C-alpha cells in the first residue's frame, strides 16, 4: 500500500517536473515570457539558438548591472537625503524649541548630521501653574557624531536668582575666581547688568547674564529681583580657548533676547537690553579709572617700584561687582632671603552677588572666623577645604561690609607674597604684622579712592569684618621667629 502511494507520487512528480527540466531552469529566473521565447527557439536553427542564448546572457548581465546601479543610486540618494534631512529637520526643531528663543541659524554648525535632536523644556514662564525653580529651562540633546571627543547639546536656562547666583557655569559663576580676561560679553549693558561669554574647560561656549528686575520675578516662595540667564553650546573649533566672534555674538544676542522676553513678560519695568547704544566717552573714562588707585608706589607696597607690576581689572563700571588686581612674576625682595609682595587684589560684591561670594569663600575657609565655625571640619578631616592659595605663596585677605548702590556689599582686599624658597608659610611676627599693615592700607585706599568702585557706588556704613589668612594658623604649623 505504501509502495502504491509512492509510485503514484513519483508519477505525478515526474510529469510535473519534466517540462521544467527541459527549459534548463531559466524559466524560473526569466518568467513566463522568457519561457515562451525559449520554447520558440527550440524549434529553430541551432546557431540562432546559440545567438539568442548569448543575447539573453547579455540582457541578463545588463539588467543585473542596471539593478545593482539602481540599488546603489537609491542607497546613495537615501544616505544623502537622510543626511540632509537630519540637518534641516534638526535646525527646524531647534528653531521651534523654547518659544523660538534659540538661535537656530547661529547654532547650525554644531548641530548633528547623523542623528536627530530631542528637545525638553519647562519653566514657569512657559507653564505658570506648574512649580519650577526655572523661569525657562530648555535642553536640546543629541547623540554626538562619530567623534572621539567633543560635547553635544544646547542648554538655556533663565531663573530668578534666589539669594545667590545659580551655579550654571563653574567657569563664569564662581565668585572666588576672577572672570577670564577674554570673557567680554560683547554687547553694551547697563550698569546694573553683568554679562560674560567664554569657553569653559569642557570646550563649550558659555554665556552668563545677570540683570535687575525691579518689578519682582514671580514663581518662587518670595518675589526676587535678579534675573540670571545661562546659555551653553559646543564650540565649533575645539582647539580654541576663546569663543570666536560669531560664537560670542550668538551667545550674547541670545542671552539678551531671553532677558528682554522675560523682563517684558514679568513686568520688570526695565528698558530692553537689545539695541543699547555703545558706552559714551564719559562712561568709558569712568570705566578706565576704576583701578587707577591700585598704584603700588602710592600704596607704598614692596615691589611696587618694579616695572613688572601690572594693574589689571574692570574697564566698565557695574553696580554688581568690582575687581582690580596688580601683580608681578618677580616679587621684590623684602628681606635678605624673603620674597616681597607678589600680588594685590580688591573685589566687591553687591546684592545677590554678596552672599554668593561670601559663601563661596566660606566654603573654602577663606572668610574671617570660618575655621572657628561649629560646622567647619576639624583639621585632619578629609573634607577640609583646600586653601585658596594653592601653589602661590601665603595670602592675607581683609574683609569689610558696606551698603552701596547695589545693596549690601562685601569687600575683600588681599595681599600675597611670592612663593618663598624653600618652604612657604614660615613668616616671622614682623612679616605677619607687615602683611596686616599692607592689606589695611590697601583697603583704606580702595574704599577712599575717588574714581574707585566704592566711591562710585556710594558705599557707606562700612564695617571691618576681619582678616582671613590662607595658610595654616601658627599653632598648627611651625612658625619661625627670627
Amino acid at each position, binding site marked *: 500500500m505504501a509502495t502504491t502511494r509512492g509510485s503514484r507520487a513519483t508519477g*505525478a512528480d515526474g*510529469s*510535473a517536473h519534466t517540462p521544467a527540466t527541459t527549459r534548463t531552469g531559466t524559466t524560473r529566473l526569466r*518568467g*513566463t515570457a522568457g519561457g515562451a521565447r525559449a520554447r520558440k527557439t527550440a524549434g529553430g536553427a541551432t546557431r540562432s539558438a546559440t545567438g539568442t542564448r548569448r543575447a539573453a546572457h547579455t540582457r541578463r548581465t545588463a539588467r543585473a548591472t542596471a539593478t545593482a546601479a539602481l540599488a546603489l543610486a537609491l542607497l546613495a540618494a537615501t544616505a544623502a537625503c537622510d543626511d540632509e534631512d537630519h540637518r534641516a529637520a534638526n535646525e527646524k526643531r531647534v528653531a521651534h524649541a523654547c518659544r523660538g528663543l534659540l538661535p537656530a541659524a547661529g547654532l547650525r554648525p554644531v548641530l548633528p548630521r547623523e542623528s536627530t535632536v530631542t528637545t*525638553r523644556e*519647562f519653566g514657569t514662564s512657559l*507653564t505658570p*501653574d*506648574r*512649580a*519650577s*525653580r*526655572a523661569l525657562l*529651562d530648555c*535642553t536640546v*540633546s543629541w547623540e554626538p557624531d562619530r567623534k572621539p571627543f567633543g560635547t553635544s*547639546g544646547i*542648554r538655556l*536656562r533663565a531663573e530668578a536668582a*534666589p*539669594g*545667590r547666583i545659580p551655579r*550654571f557655569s563653574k567657569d563664569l559663576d564662581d565668585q572666588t575666581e576672577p572672570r577670564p580676561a577674554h570673557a567680554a560679553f560683547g554687547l553694551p549693558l547697563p550698569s546694573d547688568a553683568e554679562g560674560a561669554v567664554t569657553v569653559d574647560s569642557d570646550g563649550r561656549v558659555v554665556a552668563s547674564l545677570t540683570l535687575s528686575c525691579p518689578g519682582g520675578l514671580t514663581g*518662587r*516662595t*518670595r518675589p526676587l529681583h535678579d534675573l540670571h540667564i545661562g546659555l551653553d553650546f559646543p564650540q565649533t573649533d575645539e582647539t580654541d580657548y576663546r569663543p570666536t566672534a560669531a560664537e560670542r555674538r550668538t551667545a550674547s544676542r541670545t542671552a539678551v533676547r531671553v532677558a528682554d522676553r522675560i523682563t517684558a513678560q514679568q513686568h520688570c519695568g526695565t528698558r530692553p537690553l537689545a539695541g543699547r547704544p555703545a558706552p559714551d566717552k564719559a562712561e568709558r573714562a569712568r570705566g578706565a579709572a576704576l583701578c587707577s588707585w591700585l598704584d603700588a608706589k602710592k600704596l607704598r607696597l614692596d615691589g611696587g617700584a618694579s616695572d613688572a607690576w601690572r594693574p589689571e581689572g574692570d574697564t566698565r563700571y557695574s553696580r554688581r561687582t568690582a575687581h582690580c588686581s596688580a601683580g608681578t612674576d618677580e616679587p621684590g625682595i623684602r628681606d635678605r632671603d624673603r620674597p616681597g609682595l607678589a600680588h594685590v587684589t580688591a573685589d566687591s560684591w553687591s546684592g545677590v552677588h554678596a*552672599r554668593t561670594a*561670601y*559663601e563661596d569663600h*566660606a*566654603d573654602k575657609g577663606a*572668610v574671617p572666623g570660618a575655621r572657628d565655625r*561649629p*560646622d567647619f571640619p*576639624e583639621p585632619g578631616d578629609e573634607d577640609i577645604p583646600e586653601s585658596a592659595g594653592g601653589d602661590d605663596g601665603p595670602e592675607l585677605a581683609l574683609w569689610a*561690609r558696606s551698603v552701596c548702590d547695589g545693596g549690601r556689599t*562685601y569687600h575683600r582686599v588681599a595681599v600675597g607674597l611670592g612663593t618663598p624658597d624653600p618652604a612657604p608659610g614660615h613668616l616671622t611676627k614682623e612679616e605677619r604684622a607687615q602683611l596686616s599693615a599692607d592689606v589695611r592700607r590697601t583697603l583704606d585706599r580702595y574704599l577712599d579712592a575717588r574714581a574707585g568702585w566704592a566711591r562710585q557706588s556710594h558705599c557707606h556704613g562700612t564695617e571691618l*569684618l576681619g582678616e582671613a589668612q590662607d595658610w595654616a594658623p601658627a599653632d598648627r604649623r611651625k612658625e619661625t621667629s627670627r
Partner: protein
Amino acid sequence: MNRWIWPDSRPARYVRCAGALVLVAALVGGLLLLREHRRESELAGACGGVFGVPEARALLGDGPYGEDAVSGRTTGDLDGRGASLRSSCTVEGLHDVTLSASVDGVPARGHRHDLDGMYPKVPGDLPAQPLGHGWNGLFSSGESLRGSPGGELVTAVLLDCRAKKDDLLVTVRAEPDRDDGAAPVDDPRERTRYARVATAAAAHADDHWGCGARTGKTPRDGDIALPVGAYDDVPLDDAKGTCAGIPGRGRSAARAWESARGRPGAASPLETCVLGTTEPTAAVAYRFEALYGPYAQAARADHAENDYTDRRKNPATAAAGRLHDGGHWASATCPGSRERALFTVRPPYRDPLRHEDRRSAAQRTKDRAWERAALKSFAQHSARTHTCTHLHLP
C-alpha cells in the same frame, strides 16, 4: 492539476511573493512582541512586581536592563505575629537612573526590636513636601541648607492597614544621574513621573499584602509640589506652612525653610520647619520635626538605643520633656496608629569639647522658654492637620 498546486502564472507569483512578505512581517512582529513581552516581564517580575511597568519604564527606559540590573529580597510578613515585613528591590535602568523600592511593615508599638535604621531615611535636612492626591506621604529631593545640592529623590507613602495588620511604609528612592545639569526636581513633569512610581508601588503593595488601606489617586501631571531648596527661605513672619505660628526669635532665626502643611487625610508623616539665618552665610538655628508612625518609632528606637545619659526620661520612655543635648520633645495620640506622634525642637548639634556654651544661665532659661513655646505652636498646628489628640507638652 500541478498548476493548481504550484501555479506559475504572474498573479499567482505575486500572491506567493505577498504571502512570503506577510510571513516575514509576522515573524518580525512576533519577535518584536516577544522582546517587548520579555522587557515588560523583566520589570513586572522584578521583586514580585512592586514597580508598575508603565510608571517605572517612563524613568528607566524600555530595557533590557542587563543581567544584574534587578536585585531584591523579602523577609517577614504583615500579619503582625512574626518578623515584620521587609522587602526591597532595586532596578538599575538605562539613562543612569536607579530606582529602588522598600516596602516595610510598621509593627504596632511594643515590637521595637532593631527598628533603628530599619526604615529608609529621608535624606537632606530641608523640609519634604506632602505628596498630596489623597496619600499620607511625602516627596523629598534630599537637599541641604549648605553643601549638598541633593540628587536623590525620595517618595514615601504610609498606608494605614486594617486591624490586625501592621501598617505599610512604601519608600521609593531614585538616583537620577543627569548630565545636562538640570535638577530633576525642577521639571514638573519629571517630578510627577517619580511620584507616580511610588503611588503605583503603594497601590501594588496594598493589594499584594492585603493591607486594605484607603489609597490615594495617581498624581496629575505637573502637580507635585516643588521640594524646598536652600534658597527658598521666607521671613518667619511670612511663614504659611509648617513654620506658621512659631514666635519670633531674633536675627539668628529670622528666616524660615518650610513645606506646605498638607490636609487631614493627605498630610505628610514627616513634617519639618527649619529656622535660621542667611547672614552672612546660611546657618540653622533651630529644627522642628513632627514624626508620625514609622518615623516616630525609628526616632524613639534611636533614643532607646543611644541615650545613655538619661535612660529614665527620653522620647522613648516619656511623653514630653527636655532633650539632654538641647531642645525639647512633645507627643500626641493619632488615629490609625498605636505609635504616638513625636514633636521635637533642636538647636544644631555642637560638640561640647570643641565649642563651649558661652550663654549665661539667664540666657539659657530664656532660650528654653522660647523652645517650649515654639514647640507648643508647632506641635498644635501639626497635630490638628493629622487629627491627633492628647497632646503632651514639656
